[in-house]
């Protein structure tokens, strides 16, 4: 059984999804989905432990040897991603039952869990597989279920947001498909490991360059890298709160994973950074993203919008780390990937609690909530502090490494800009704090109570994780370091 | 049960035609998928005499033979008028009375009208069919009621 973990990781949620149909009651489906996600989490823990102790795991699907068969390949980077996705998914699901009761009509609950598990399976598949075309298939599985999940949102704008996301996402996926096809044409293989060996022989050709360009653009669309981010704010704002919490923490992370996998493993660092002016391009876009999106976040009236723009800004940080293209830089990106997943899931889940009680996430509705929902608002404040990068939260750890990476490269002005970006985060977080704590409650709001425990517990698990991993950084630092070093081909 | 059987039979034949394989593995897969389709069909509640009009089987070949003749004739007529040009046609819209009692009878009649080029059933309301014809004569032919009679006869058999 242990030997089959890589494939079980994907298969379990994938097969579990249709099984939901046979469970009639919403509560039953929820328990089942939760159990499946928890099992996936357990598997990813075991995988991580296995990878860290005995190196990369290679699993040949159906016993077909690569490159003929499809190979699942788990190295520290994959294991980290799997852990993030399954962990967040499980905690978010914990809150799902209560939250969707308010936001999704009862008869669609089963449908919701099916889509959720499919989306989860898709993301896990993208990460676990070692086959480029398989990546595309899983990408579409997770995206398609994602569009449908977003469309489940209460507001009619959810439909429009899902539609726009569908268009952009499909264009992105198709770009990736073109890139994969061109690579196949040049090398005759789809196995990523094999590709990385054969691409250098043909890397001077225009076709390979075109393939790379298509893949990068496609991924950047999925990634919501500034200025390709336009689909993200509405998708996050109008999706059901649970979906937002799940996607904000995982979807763009998977895209970052793909970016790293393709640039570092498949095409190779030297090719990637010489074929395109990737360094200057990503540095510029990353910084622009940080400032433009943070500034936009300051002016949002809808708190989900606010945090959605903040997500775009945080992607900017990850991209800046990526553009440094050193072990420290990549480590900073991976750390932030891990940490940002914790922050955003905590924040959006807390917003789910707010929606549960007051049915709105307009900033103007937050007045006085600090008194009425003290634990929820405290969670938002701690999540916000983490977003700013205050010490003892996870946000500080990743920012520390990011600035170290930038300074190592001698990019002093960039370091200053990154810190200035954090100031903008202070402003938008503080707008929320002021509204919640320093404004009197709205009239007629005296009866608002704290969110139920079924929401508070998952929120606080994530908040405590934000603090715990901000203090005890051994796990995150070790794993990201191992991942970063293996990507650079340095033995740890 | 009869309907289930005929559906299973037609699915099996369709599968065999498409596959052309007869290894044990393939056949068992076929059995599996056919069973699944039968299950779905039952779940959707579509296995009845409407989807499987087996009761018509005996009389149907004769009707089909007549219908094929009609189709050939009407094809020739339409092609002739295509080549003769637009001056030769007389598009007509008319209501026709159908004498069938069952839904399936009406559908057979309406589809027969549509299948013979030159006439199309546009709307069915009760026993009134709204028919568009390329030529006035086609409507007149329909109104003579031979096709109507034959379909009704078909229906009477059961």
């Amino acid at each position, binding site marked *: 059984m242990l030997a089959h973990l890589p494939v079980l990781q994907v298969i379990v949620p994938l097969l579990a999804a249709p099984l939901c149909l046979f469970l009639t009651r919403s509560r039953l489906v929820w328990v089942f989905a939760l159990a499946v996600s928890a099992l996936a989490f357990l598997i990813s823990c075991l995988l991580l432990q296995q990878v860290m102790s005995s190196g990369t795991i290679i699993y040949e699907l159906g016993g077909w040897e690569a490159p003929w068969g499809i190979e699942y390949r788990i190295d520290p980077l994959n294991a980290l991603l799997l852990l993030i996705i399954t962990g967040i998914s499980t905690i978010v699901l914990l809150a799902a039952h209560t939250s969707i009761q308010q936001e999704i009509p009862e008869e669609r609950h089963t449908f919701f869990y099916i889509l959720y598990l499919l989306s989860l399976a898709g993301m896990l598949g993208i990460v676990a597989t070692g086959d480029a075309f398989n990546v595309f298939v899983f990408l579409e599985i997770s995206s398609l279920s994602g569009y449908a999940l977003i469309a489940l949102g209460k507001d009619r704008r959810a439909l429009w947001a899902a539609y726009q996301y569908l268009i952009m996402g499909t264009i992105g996926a198709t770009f990736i498909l073109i890139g994969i096809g061109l690579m196949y044409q040049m090398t005759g293989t789809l196995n990523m490991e094999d590709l990385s060996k054969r691409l250098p022989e043909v890397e001077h050709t225009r076709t390979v360059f075109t393939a790379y360009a298509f893949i990068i653009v496609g991924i950047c669309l999925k990634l919501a890298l500034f200025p390709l981010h336009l689909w993200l704010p509405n998708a996050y704002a109008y999706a059901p709160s649970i979906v937002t919490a799940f996607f904000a923490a995982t979807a763009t992370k998977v895209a970052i994973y793909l970016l790293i996998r393709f640039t570092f493993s498949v095409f190779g660092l030297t090719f990637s950074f010489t074929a395109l002016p990737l360094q200057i391009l990503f540095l510029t876009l990353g910084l622009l993203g940080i400032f433009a999106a943070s500034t936009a976040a300051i002016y949002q009236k809808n708190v989900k919008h606010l945090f959605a723009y903040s997500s775009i800004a945080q992607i900017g940080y990850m991209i800046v780390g990526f553009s440094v293209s050193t072990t420290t830089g990549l480590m900073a990106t991976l750390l932030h990937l891990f940490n940002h997943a914790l922050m955003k899931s905590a924040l959006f889940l807390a917003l789910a609690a707010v929606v549960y009680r007051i049915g709105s996430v307009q900033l103007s509705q937050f007045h006085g909530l600090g008194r009425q929902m003290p634990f929820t608002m405290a969670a938002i404040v701690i999540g916000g502090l983490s977003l700013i990068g205050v010490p003892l939260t996870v946000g500080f750890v990743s920012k520390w490494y990011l600035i170290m990476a930038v300074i*190592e490269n001698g990019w002093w002005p960039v370091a200053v800009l990154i*810190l200035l970006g954090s100031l903008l985060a*202070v402003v938008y977080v503080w707008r929320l704090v002021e509204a919640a704590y320093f404004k009197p409650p709205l009239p007629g709001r005296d009866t608002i109570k704290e969110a139920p425990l079924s929401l508070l517990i998952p929120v606080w698990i994530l908040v405590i994780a934000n603090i715990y991993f901000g203090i005890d*950084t051994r796990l995150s630092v070790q794993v990201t370091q191992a991942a970063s070093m293996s990507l650079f081909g340095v033995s740890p | 049960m009869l309907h289930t059987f005929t559906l299973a039979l037609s699915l099996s034949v369709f599968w065999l035609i498409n596959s052309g394989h007869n290894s044990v593995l393939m056949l068992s897969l076929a059995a599996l998928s056919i069973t699944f389709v039968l299950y779905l069909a039952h779940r959707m509640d579509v296995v009845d005499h409407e989807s499987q009009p087996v009761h018509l089987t005996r009389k149907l070949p004769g009707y089909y033979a007549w219908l094929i003749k009609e189709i050939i004739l009407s094809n020739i007529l339409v092609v002739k008028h295509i080549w003769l040009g637009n001056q030769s046609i007389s598009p007509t819209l008319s209501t026709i009375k159908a004498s069938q009692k069952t839904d399936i009878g009406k559908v057979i009649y309406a589809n027969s009208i549509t299948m013979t080029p030159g006439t199309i059933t546009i709307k069915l309301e009760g026993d009134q069919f709204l028919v568009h014809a390329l030529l006035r004569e086609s409507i007149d032919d329909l109104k003579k009621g031979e096709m109507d009679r034959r379909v009704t006869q078909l229906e009477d058999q059961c």
Partner: protein
Amino acid sequence: MIISLESMLQLSIILPLLAMLAIVSTGRNPNLRETVSISTSLVVIYFVFNLYLGIKQGENIQVDWWELLPGLQISFNIEPLGMIFALIASFLWLITTVYSIGYMRSHKEQNQTRFYACFAIAIGSVMGIAFSANLFTLFIFYEVLTLSTYPLVTHAGTEDAKRGGRIYLGILLGTSIVFFLLAIISTWFVAGSLDFKPGGVFDPNVNTTVAGVILVLFIFGIGKAAIMPFHRWLPAAMVAPTPVSALLHAVAVVKAGVFTVLKVCVFIFGLDLLAILPSTQFLLYLAGASVLLASLVAMRQDNLKARLAYSTVSQLGYVTIGALLATSAGVIGSSMHIGMHAFGKITLFFCAGAILVAAHKSKISEMQGLGRQMPITMAAFFLASLSIIGVPPAGGTWSKWYLLMGSMEAEQWILMAVLMISSLLNIAYLLPIPFRAFFPARGMPVTDTGIKEAPLPSLIALSITAVGCVILFVYPQPLYELARAILDAPGLAYGK
């Protein structure tokens, strides 16, 4: 019950934080709540005093909590400079608490529980700052202090208060995140260590340009030291209730700022390196300009608290100058000035608060003749003014003397002149207040308005600190010895 010194160190940080919880949970019962506040501060004073005795006996008190990232530790260590800060802060916390009780109750302020709770966190973080063994630990508590004092500044809840709060938070967080953090990371990157070490952590052959830039980042980044042009938060924070102003301007915030500047100069750069950095001179002039300009601005303020605020900006400049002079006298002078100014300025704010509570006056021009009705308050004001100015019989005399010696030693003649001119300006903007209170200008109607002295707790508090100013003149020995020991190995060789 024997508590180890290490435990006392940790407890003096943790206790105020625990007290915060107790304050929140006893919020319904004001008497119990304030008993918690006062008893905690007494215990903390006890601990700090014991620690003081400990390091006097040459104990090296070191506590390591945990390692956040490889080499980045949260740990504590006591050396004389930190001890000075801890002693002053813990003592003045007690006094301020006593004073606040009188002030807050007679003012019938809202949200008193939040006030005391934040107050407790602030003191806990001040203790953390004082005992930090490295820059990273200090930075954490520095930020906690900023965040915990924000609700204090905006306590009134008015639009004015919020605007002030935004400036306060914006400048302090902004400078600390952009410059201070960058300076810390750069130090880590260049020197490989953030530990406070006698003689500094930088390699003596370090590129002086880089180190110079880092020094500038530090001085700008430590916004709490209020060097111009990053001083705006201090006058903005004036909107806070008077005990908060006392806390901000005398005890916690500004002292944390200049304390950090001193720590960085002495233990990160080291005086030897500091003296040869190209940017030191520039920063000295900047601090000098800050001293002079702030004094000039202070003269033009009619609002008493505003005048005191600008006076603080100017006095903080003294401490910064002392640190940047890179001479032993400068360091002694500036560390003593932390204490002297604390006592003087807290007294002045207590007086300002007392006048506001008792006479409902905040404008200096309205305070003529007030000496008759509030003789104790005005006398205390007078003594404290002397300490700020630096003339006997008040403690400020000693610190200013050492600062002058330091500038002489460093042959900084211009700065010496600046310090002297500024002292003259101090006289000009402080002394007329008590003078006019006792001897109103001719033509001022002296009517009995029924104004009486402030409530007893406030009166006791301001009297104690005023007397403290005098005691520090008469008996500056302990403070001086601590200040002298700073330049020896911290925690060791003290008193020998």
